[in-house]
Each structure stands twice: as C-alpha cells, then as structure tokens.
C-alpha cells in the first residue's frame, strides 16, 4: 500500500468512525441510564442497579399507558389487516373498471392527507362525533390513514397467488369465504405478517394523533404520556424516563429484528411515514 493509499484509508475509517459516533451517541443514554443508580442527563458508566425499574410501578399512569399503546397498536393492526385483506382479495380477483386508477388515487391520497396536514379537520370531525378521548376513535383515524398502502401491498401479494388453487377449492364446493380463509390466507401469510408489523410499528410510535385526540391521562398511550414525565416544571424524573423509554422501545426493536431475520429488510415506499 502506497503512503497515499494509506492516508486515504485512514481518512476513510475516521469518517466512518465519526458517522458511527454521530448515530450512536444519542442512543447510548437509552442503554446505560436505566441501569445507573445515579442517572444523569450526560452519558456515564453506570453504577449498576435494577432499582430504577420500580419507578414504573410508582407512577400511576406508566404501565397503563404501555397497555394503551398495545390496545391501539393491536386494535389498528386487526382492523387494517382484516379490511385490507378482504378488499385486496376482492380487487385482485374481480374485474372492476378503473380499479388500478382507484388504487393509485387512494395511495396518493394517503401520502398527501397526513396526520399533520389534516390535524384540524380530523380533530373537528372527532369533536363533532363525540370521539374525543376515545381510543376507538384513534384506532379508526389511524386505520383510515394506513389502509390504502396496506391494500396496495396486499393486492401485490394476492396477485401472486395462482388462481388454480381457488378453482380446485371451488370444484370441491368451498364457499368464497372458506376459500379466502383456508386457501388464500395461508399462502399470503408473509404479506399479512408484513402488514401487521408495519401497522404496529407505525401506531406504536405515532405521537400526533393520540396527542390531539386523547386528553385523559388514563387513556393516553406511552408516546403521549412520556411528555408529562419531563415537561411539567421542575427537573425531569430520570429514573422513570430512562426505564420507561427502554421498555417502550423494546417491542419495535424486537419486531424489527424479527422482520429482518425472517424476510430480510424489504421495505415499500410508504412503510414509514
């Protein structure tokens, strides 16, 4: 290796190291502080303890908010998977004029009408419907936003199922619902898993929609409740914030690892918005 290449190599690795430090630095706090007997804002070698986790039980809302996050994520995932699967199946199998245009229009719409751009009408709509402070309301709003992309992706999966499978099933007298349940669903299981994980990750991290629609601390998911740990005057409760953050981030990390291992990290245009 010539000296010039050598310098180039060193420079290259320095840059990679800097980039790595840039991405790692903010996150290290999340790993070390929950286990530190003297948690501070700055990174520190922890004085090991598990005592901080008892704060989770001391806060009246902490564990409940994680349960709320699960309710919202699972509720939305069930609704999105069920409605998107039936709709995608129907659109994949029955010729409806203008079907592809309709699908593209819906996809376009869902990327334009984001929670941010539509927070005013969505808030007013839920206000008029009496669905402020309703977890069902949040599930409905989030499902409406996620369905177009879910239908779009699932239709791709459905199109890849050979129609001969269903024809054989029909010959044996299966009803169309039975065909969907026993023939199509098992074949497109990877697609359904993808949509479920994608929905859950999206809802789990969503802050804005539950933030504007849920005022009652008993109903707020973790993403919204967390703010009350540090914005309401005084110094933040670091024992609580650090342990809560860790617990709150573990599910999405696990799901990411699961998807990565099982299917590879394939992603579609709007997988994260």
């Amino acid at each position: 290796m010539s000296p010039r290449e050598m310098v180039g190599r060193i420079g290259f690795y320095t840059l990679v190291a800097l980039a790595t430090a840039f991405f790692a630095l903010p996150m290290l706090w999340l790993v070390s502080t929950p286990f530190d007997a003297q948690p501070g804002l700055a990174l520190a070698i922890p004085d090991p303890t598990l005592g901080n986790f008892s704060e989770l039980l001391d806060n009246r809302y902490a564990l409940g908010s994680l349960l709320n996050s699960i309710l919202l994520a699972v509720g939305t995932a069930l609704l999105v998977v069920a409605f998107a699967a039936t709709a995608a199946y129907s659109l994949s199998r029955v010729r409806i004029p203008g079907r592809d245009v309709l699908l593209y229009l819906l996809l376009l719409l869902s990327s334009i009408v984001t929670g941010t751009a539509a927070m005013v009408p969505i808030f007013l709509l839920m206000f008029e419907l009496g669905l402020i402070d309703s977890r069902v309301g949040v599930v409905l709003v989030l499902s409406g936003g996620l369905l177009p992309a879910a239908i779009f992706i699932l239709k791709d999966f459905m199109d890849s199922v050979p129609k001969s499978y269903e024809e054989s099933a029909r010959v044996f007298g299966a009803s169309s619902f039975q065909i969907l349940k026993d023939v199509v669903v098992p074949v497109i299981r990877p697609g359904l898993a993808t949509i479920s994980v994608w929905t859950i990750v999206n809802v789990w991290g969503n802050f804005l929609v539950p933030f504007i629609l849920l005022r009652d601390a008993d109903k707020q998911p973790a993403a919204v409740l967390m703010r009350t740990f540090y914005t309401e005057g005084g110094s933040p409760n670091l024992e609580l914030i650090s342990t809560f953050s860790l617990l709150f981030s573990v599910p999405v990390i696990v799901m990411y690892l699961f998807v990565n291992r099982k299917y590879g990290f394939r992603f579609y245009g709007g997988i994260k918005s």
Partner: protein
Amino acid sequence: MAQKTELPPAEQPAPAAKPRSKPATDVAGLGRGRAAAFVAPAMALIAVFLVFPALWTIYIGITNYRLTGVQAREPEVVGVDNYVRALGDPTFHNSLFLTLIFVLFSAVIGQNLLGFSLARSLSTLRPVLRRVVESLVLLAWIIPSSIVAFLWLALLDRDAGTLNVLLQTSGFAWLIEYPLVSIIIFNIWRGTAFSMLLYSAALASVPPSQLETARLVGASRWQTLRDVVFPHIRGHVLTNTLLISLWTFNDFTPFLITAGGPNDRTEILPVYIYNTAISGGQMGYGAAVSLIMLLINLIIALFYIRLLRERK
C-alpha cells in the same frame, strides 16, 4: 361526500346473502355483490377518515370556526379572509421560510448526502462492521419519536448534556442559541436510514464491469461517481429526494424538542398549524393554512407520480 352515500357504513355487517342475479364470472366465485361487500368496510373507513377530512378542510378554511365562544356554535363563512390574513401575516411567512430551510438542509441536502455516502462506504466495509453501522442508523429511524426527542434533549442539555460534557462547553444552550440548526441535525440523524437503504439498493444495480472499465482508464473517484455511477441512479436520487422531502415536511417530531420556540424560531408549518388551530383554537385560520400544506403535499406527490410514469 359522494363516497359516503354509495357505501354501507362500516359498522353494519356486510350483506352476505345478496340475491345472486348473475352467475359469478371470477375464479373466486365472489360475484359483484360479495366483491363489493368485501371492499366496502375498507372504503368506508378511508372515505370518512381520509377523504372527508381533506375535503372538509376547504370548507373550514373559509369560515371563522373557533373552538370556544360564539363562533364555535355559529361559525360564519368569511370567504377568503383567512387566506388574505395568512398572506399578510409575518408569523406565517416566518413559518414558511423556516420550513423551507428545514426541508432543504435536513432532507434534500443532509439525509441525501449522508445516506448516499453511508451506502457507498458501507459496501467496502467488512460485513460485521457494516451490520453494526447499518443497525445504528436504522435504530435511529425506528425508535418512537417521543423517545428520540428526549434523547436529543438529554444530549443537548445546557448544564449536564453529553455534548457539553464532551466539548467542555457547560452552560451553552444549543437549543436556544442554534434552535433551527439543532432540529436540522436532529432530523438528519433521524431520517438518514431511508436514503441509506434506498441508495444501497441503487448502487447494487450499477454494472461492475463499467466500474472496472472506469478504474482501468484511470478515472478519479469523482469522475467515476459523475460519469458511471450517477447516470445509473439518477431516478433513485429523484425518488429519494421527493419522498424524504414529503416526510420531512410533514414531520411533527421537532415539536417534541423545541415546541416551535424559542420565539417561534423553529415554528415549522406543522407546529404553526398546531399552535394556531389546536392550541390557539383558531380552527378556520388553521384549516386555511392546512389547505396550503395539503396543496404543497399534492405538488410533491404529483412530481413523484410523473417520475414513476417516465421510468416505466
């Protein structure tokens, strides 16, 4: 709301036993009626919670709707007053300008360049090292926004933040001295993963034989990049730029770090809408600004669709 009347509401059970007027012609034996019933619940939800809000924004935007007071019960149509007010309002100008700077520097320049550089340099790293760096970048992308917001508050804290400890600049308030720069760097950190993934896939499509030829004729790194790599990934660059711009433009996370402050210096459009409409109760005015935001989204999305068509 034409869609709403055509479709049965989501709550009603789908009419399963519709009289079969025609024999089914599709493989699944669904028939028109059941096919429609299968699509209906999804379409009903989309119609009520996606299409209707978008259309309703147009109406709310021409009223003086407020959350409290007389206008809450009896909102009046005030025509284009809200738009006239927005065009003449320095706080709105400020917000638009901040949004432009934020999207330009954090997405178009920051995420694009860093994502591309990472994708290009990671391919030459050892697989173990590569996986470590990639995982870190991806983690920054998938951890819930409320958590990353606090992680950055801890990093940038005036008295005890990690950054001030490292630089030995205790007492320096980054979020007050450089609020916009802070959220720009935050957003680069947060969103680079997408560009990295997209460019990694794109770079894999550049034919190795052409890279080899470039090397043999003694092309410099920059020349190879410009004349061999770039022509192959031009479409990806445009796709990536449009998508990350759209997402950054609609990102509410900066609110969790600065809430628009200090003194509106980070009040990007999403935060501006929240502060005026939801927090300030001026629904009519907020809806007018929202419509402007929806139109900007539409323009970006239409560019994207045109791009997809051209590539086909």
